[in-house]
């Protein structure tokens, strides 16, 4: 069965520090993977997606993610976090007509 696990419920980083949010998936075939960000009162905004090819994908707002098949992971990274990055982040795997989402990681940014 398809599933996504985001092991970190909350993460706090200092502004300017690097960030890595973990995502592990379970899927029988080649996964199509997504990262979304959700700010309070806002809808989910797509950060990046992976379908095939280069395992390091670049997204908006300076985010990138690396697909590692051997680890069933698709971790999100950013070299230098900005205060405006404080939000909740969701990883998802696509199964044709539906997405399966993780439970999210809330990012706090310290000044």
């Amino acid at each position: 069965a398809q599933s996504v696990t985001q092991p970190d419920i909350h993460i706090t980083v200092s502004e300017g520090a690097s960030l890595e949010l973990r995502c592990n998936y379970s899927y029988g075939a080649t996964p199509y993977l997504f990262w979304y960000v959700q700010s309070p009162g806002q809808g989910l905004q797509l950060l990046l997606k992976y379908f095939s090819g280069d395992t390091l994908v670049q997204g908006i707002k300076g985010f990138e993610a690396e697909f590692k098949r051997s680890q069933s992971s698709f971790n999100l990274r950013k070299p230098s976090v900005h205060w405006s990055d404080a939000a909740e982040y969701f990883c998802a795997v696509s199964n044709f007509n539906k997405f399966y989402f993780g439970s999210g990681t809330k990012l706090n940014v310290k000044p």
Partner: protein
Amino acid sequence: GAGVSQTPSNKVTEKGKYVELRCDPISGHTALYWYRQSLGQGPEFLIYFQGTGAADDSGLPNDRFFAVRPEGSVSTLKIQRTERGDSAVYLCASSLMAGGRSDTQYFGPGTRLTVL
């Protein structure tokens, strides 16, 4: 262009009442999805439309939930005899086409439903 819009943004109702939640997808998007996001959880799939027909309603929790999309654009999610457990944020998404796993879904801001 305009994104996915949802109305109302907030809905408070009493247990046992009927509610309708509306979604207006991105123009030209043929596929429309409904998800439910409970507190502290990621969105959970409810139903997916391709055009006017519900192609997959396997996520609807029970027969109190129903959704329509009569003209292949706007969709309404209908909940009968609401229960306190129905309280959640209901998200709508649309995509250009459907059936492809690579199809990106664009989400609306959601409707926060509170059942008292």
